[in-house]
């Protein structure tokens, strides 16, 4: 057997080339595969975070539906075995059985007879405006909620309830549960007279009748006075980066090679964007809710910090303020930073329609706000629609445009039909940078606030229907 030198050189060269290329390409592919796997791991974690937010929202809302109808055992079952419930300044109740009895006593049900409410008992406790933050490990979370209550007994009492809830959650065996609830009652106000008729109470001197008959297991960690005193329930998101309003920074993926791995990389790019956009929906819900909680308490500086530096603010017919510094000045027209005793400034943020742009760089949302005000001892109702815009600033969502269209303002005692108020004109002391973008009148005039989104089913632009 013999080989010609030429054939040997050829074979040698071919084999070498094949081997070197094989090793080189394999090395390159291995690095790309490792990078892709790392991305998938990060995407899996992010998916779990967004799922956790939706599950926490679900827990809070399920709680409300149970308590509404006297399903207090089912509500208590949403807690961990050693879960706690702090009711205002009354104190802390520990464990499911005690929480069940606490809710039953406050709601007017019966432990012995099971779920239901007696004739004439109203216990509607609407759970609204969640800000949900999932911890880094993914096994615990916090949320802030607003409870808006319609409470009372037929022919005996009718009461408005207002509270802020700060919750801790844990994931046990794959199931999210409430581990600690801090229920900061702000007021229970009689329907007749409303919140503006409430008189100041001394801190620590307003334990509920329930607590006197059914003492808590531990004292409340904090004493405070309810409205008309202005008390700010502690925020779980007070310190550190505002994870709740972050999703992914805008990202333009590179052109992927036209090979098997490249096809997977391109798929991952598309799914990553899809995930980022759905995460952004939750971050935007959190942002708007957070804004509402700051406005409630006259925290203008914190609220203005949620705007992009060139963000705009327009309220009713008061004109447009440009830039976060001017936004803060415009907000300050509602009252001093932190509000004064007797000032109520509740802006309830509800009914979002959030549309994130295809590239996850901007978003638009429609929201509704109900407004409960008190100034100089007079109560007021308000209602309106937001058509807002947002910008993804390196992964953190901010307001680029906030526009509130007033539907109505009405006197509390007489109602919006008997005594509606017109909108305020532009302020002369702190004038806006631009006049109102849309001129209109509030109730009794009514008009359709233009929809900044297409019909969700037909995908056609929404034109006003009018006969």
């Amino acid at each position, binding site marked *: 057997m013999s080989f010609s030198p030429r054939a040997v050189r050829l074979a040698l060269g071919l084999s070498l080339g094949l081997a070197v290329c094989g090793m080189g390409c394999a090395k390159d592919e291995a690095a790309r595969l490792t990078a892709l796997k790392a991305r998938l791991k990060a995407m899996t974690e992010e*998916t779990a975070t967004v799922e956790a937010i939706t599950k926490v929202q679900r827990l809070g809302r399920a709680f409300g*539906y149970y308590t509404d109808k*006297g399903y207090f055992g089912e509500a208590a079952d949403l807690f961990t075995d050693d879960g706690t419930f702090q009711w205002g300044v009354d104190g802390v109740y520990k464990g499911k059985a005690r929480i069940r009895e606490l809710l039953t006593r406050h709601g007017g049900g019966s432990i012995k007879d099971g779920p239901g409410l007696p004739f004439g008992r109203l216990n509607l406790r609407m759970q609204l405006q969640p800000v949900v933050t999932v911890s880094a490990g993914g096994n615990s979370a916090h949320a802030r909620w607003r409870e808006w209550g319609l409470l009372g007994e037929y022919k005996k009492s009718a009461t408005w309830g207002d509270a802020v809830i700060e919750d801790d959650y844990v994931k046990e065996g794959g199931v999210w549960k409430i581990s600690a609830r801090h229920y900061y009652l702000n007021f229970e106000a009689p329907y007749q007279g409303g919140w503006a008729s409430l008189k100041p109470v001394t801190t620590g001197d307003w334990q509920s009748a329930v607590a006197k008959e059914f003492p808590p297991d531990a004292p409340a960690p904090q004493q405070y006075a309810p409205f008309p005193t202005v008390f700010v329930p502690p925020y779980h998101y007070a310190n550190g980066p505002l994870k709740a309003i972050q999703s992914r920074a805008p990202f333009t993926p590179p052109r992927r090679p036209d090979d098997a791995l490249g096809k997977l990389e391109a*798929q991952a790019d598309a799914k990553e964007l899809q995930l980022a956009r759905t995460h952004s929906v939750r971050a935007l819900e959190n942002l708007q809710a957070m804004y509402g909680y700051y406005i409630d308490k006259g925290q203008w500086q914190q609220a203005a910090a949620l705007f992009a530096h060139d963000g705009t603010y327009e309220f009713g017919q008061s004109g447009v303020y440009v830039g976060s510094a001017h936004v803060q000045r415009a907000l300050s027209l509602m009252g001093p930073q932190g509000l004064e005793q007797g000032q109520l400034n509740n802006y309830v943020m509800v009914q979002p329609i959030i549309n994130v742009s295809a590239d996850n760089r901007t978003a638009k949302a429609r929201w509704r706000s109900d407004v409960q005000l008190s100034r100089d001892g007079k109560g007021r109702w308000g*209602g309106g629609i937001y058509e807002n815009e947002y910008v993804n600033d390196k992964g953190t969502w901010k307001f680029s445009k906030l526009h509130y269209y007033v539907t109505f303002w009405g006197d509390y005692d007489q109602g919006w039909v008997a005594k509606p108020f017109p909108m305020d004109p532009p302020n002369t002391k702190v004038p806006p940078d631009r006049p109102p973008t849309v001129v209109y009148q509030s109730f009794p005039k009514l008009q359709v606030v233009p929809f900044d989104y297409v019909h969700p089913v037909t995908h056609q632009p929404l034109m006003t229907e009018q006969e």
Partner: protein
Amino acid sequence: MLNFMPRSIVALVWVALCASVAHAQSANELQAVQQELNSLGTRIERLQDLNEIQIVQHTYGYFVDKAQWHGLADLFAQDATLEIGGKGVFLGHDRVFEYMHKGLGPLGPRDGLLIDHQQFQCLPTVNDDGVTGSVRCIAFVMSSGGWGHNYYEDRFVKENGVWKFKKLHGPFNMYCGYKIGWLDNTVVNTYPEKFPPPPDLPPTVIYLTFPNYYIEPFHYPNPVTGNPMPPPSPRAGGEAFGR
């Protein structure tokens, strides 16, 4: 020299073979990555579905506010049903429009007539099939007449990638006037003859609103225990689920 050459060629071929074995290994890995991407894709789509269902429910509320009945009817599948209060069941997209247009008034807002149907506390569920879902939601009504609090237990269907109402069921909890609220002038439930048009089918459930007790069954089990909803206790005042 003669001995050296075949051996070196064998060695080189062996190296090349190793590279192709590595290639085969990575093909398996690529397949695993593809599977992971697929399951992740399903989870992400479910999250989007929850949001899209919520958008349909919330849009319904904005359309009621301003009597945008064509837009509202288009939120419903062709074979969808609608049942609100005690009025009975309306069958199909066109009857949904008729219920609104004949029953509640002409297209567009009318000055002085506030009918805000605010959608609160939306709890959406997507079923494992990915094409059916549900919502429990509240309509908190602020109107020229006063207040209302209703539930929704709605069903949704995803047709050609778009979520629509398959069934809207809106049982009433409480309606009252403004002056003294729910202290005592509460309004009773509606009934089929209360206002035109008549329904296609009688109400699926007969119940009384506040101050009476009625609970619409939950579409979901307890999120923590997984237990189905127990019926309300008549001894506690819970008059079962209606008729």
